[in-house]
């Protein structure tokens, strides 16, 4: 089964791994691959993880991808948007968000490209990134690892990076906690100084290719090879969580 594993499935397993030791917290995942990853974690190594239907219900069993509570399943909690902010302030949450731009310190931008006064390209806005990054662990998911995303300097800091968090002399950012960046090429972490480094390259990706697609110098010297999901994980991904194969639309084989 593992012989024909796709790149998307490797990414799903890497996303799932971000919830190891997360405990009994709300998993917030933006994007198809991270959503599958959170469900996979819940069904394997993280049984206490709390999942939503993507609207405002907590589901006692992982809900089908893209289906809200209206489609069935057992509701175990109600978290309309007004309660989400309380949960993130309490720290009982972990997010995997997207990034339109990200720099070597993990500063993330989803707001706009160019000058904020009159952007070249307006995106969705900072959404919850500033609050998420100062309240609980945040990981990022980049489905297309390119120099356009991995930039020397982001145009607008929505999610707060390690350099800014560490520059504070007071205690205000004590809950700042960047985890990893999972991309279609690799899993990136941060070194002791908070600088991005390559943890593992997905099978078939070379260090040269990774550096070529990254807009700043990045240390690949300690990189291992990203693990391949095991048979049980593959069965869950393919037959239970994502039988329609939506994951392969977000990341091509």
């Amino acid at each position, binding site marked *: 089964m593992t012989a024909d594993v796709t790149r998307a499935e490797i990414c799903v397993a890497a996303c799932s791994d971000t919830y190891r030791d997360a405990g009994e917290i709300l998993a917030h995942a933006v994007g198809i691959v991270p959503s599958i990853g959170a469900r996979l974690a819940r069904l394997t190594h993280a049984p206490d993880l709390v999942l939503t239907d993507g609207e405002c219900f907590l589901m006692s069993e992982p809900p089908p991808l893209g289906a809200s509570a209206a489609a069935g399943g057992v509701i175990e909690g109600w978290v309309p948007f007004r309660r989400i902010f309380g949960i993130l302030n309490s720290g009982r949450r972990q997010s995997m968000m997207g990034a339109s731009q990200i720099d070597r310190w993990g500063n993330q931008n989803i707001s706009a490209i160019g000058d904020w006064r009159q952007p070249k390209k307006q995106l969705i*806005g900072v959404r919850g990134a500033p609050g998420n990054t100062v309240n609980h662990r945040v990981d990022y998911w980049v489905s297309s690892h390119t120099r356009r995303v991995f930039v020397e300097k982001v145009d607008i800091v929505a999610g707060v990076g390690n350099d800014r968090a560490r520059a504070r002399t007071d205690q205000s950012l004590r809950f700042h906690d960047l985890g990893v960046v999972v991309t279609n090429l690799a899993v990136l972490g941060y070194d002791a100084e908070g600088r991005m480094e390559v943890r593992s390259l997905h099978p078939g990706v070379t260090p040269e290719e990774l550096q070529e697609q990254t807009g700043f110098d990045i240390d690949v010297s300690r990189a291992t090879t990203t693990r391949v999901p095991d048979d049980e994980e593959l069965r869950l991904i393919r037959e239970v969580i994502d039988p329609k194969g939506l994951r392969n639309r977000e990341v091509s084989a």
Partner: protein
Amino acid sequence: MADKTMSAAEAVAQIESGMTVGIGGWGSRRKPMALVRELLRTDVRDLTVVAFGGPDVGLLCAAGKVRKLVYGFVSLDSIPLDPHFTAAREAGHIETAEYDEGMFVAALRAGANRLSFEPTRAGLESDVLTMNPNLKTVKSPYDDEVYVAVPGVRMDVSLIHLNRGDARGNGQYLGPDPYFDDLIAMASDRCIMSVEKIVPTEELLRDAVPQTLLVSRMYVHGVVEAPRGAHFTTCDPDYGRDETFQRAYAKAARDPEAWSAFQERFLSGDEASYHRAVADFHAAEAAESEEKQ
């Protein structure tokens, strides 16, 4: 007992150029679209709009009615971006106060509580502070922490849409999420509430639990009956989002010529003619898909 029912035109006549206007809902969900469409028919301009934005913000931007936008995001949900909003931003046409979503709620809460600010960690070290140079931080009097002091926002008028209401202004939501409509009403000097259906007070709880009574008449100054008044956004459980129509809206909004045609077809008449045009649109879509089969 005051009967606060009025027409959409009477309700919207309370909005004057230069005012700060709050809009309820979230993204493309339970937006007071009938009231927004009514506002489009007026010559009001230079508004400061406060919203978790969706097509309400897009339409008002396209009509040139927005001077300043206070927002956490603007999205059509199933379509990530509203083309009118992005066009207005990229042209530099509007002033903005872009907040983190949690900060936005803090601003509403402080406004409703008549506090000058609410402290929050959200925003620290992010460019939300760069983009809003008036924002200040506050040192905790108790320990070594510093918070963003999010200034309370007060609105002259707010527009919200609920499933049911009575003539006195009690509002009921029947969908899964109340969003922030009660808070927006409380942070406003005047609140106009449109509802799918006005019912006698004693009928509000005939088939619903008391927790659905979201908005109290203490905060409501006008009640407008507007069936399908959230169209094309969601209004569960009365109806879901009209995705086909939203796609047509977003497609037209990307092209000035197509937008003129869209305006002419859907937005040039009154609310009744809007709904007729939408019905015709769906009839034509259905005929077309039948032909393809």
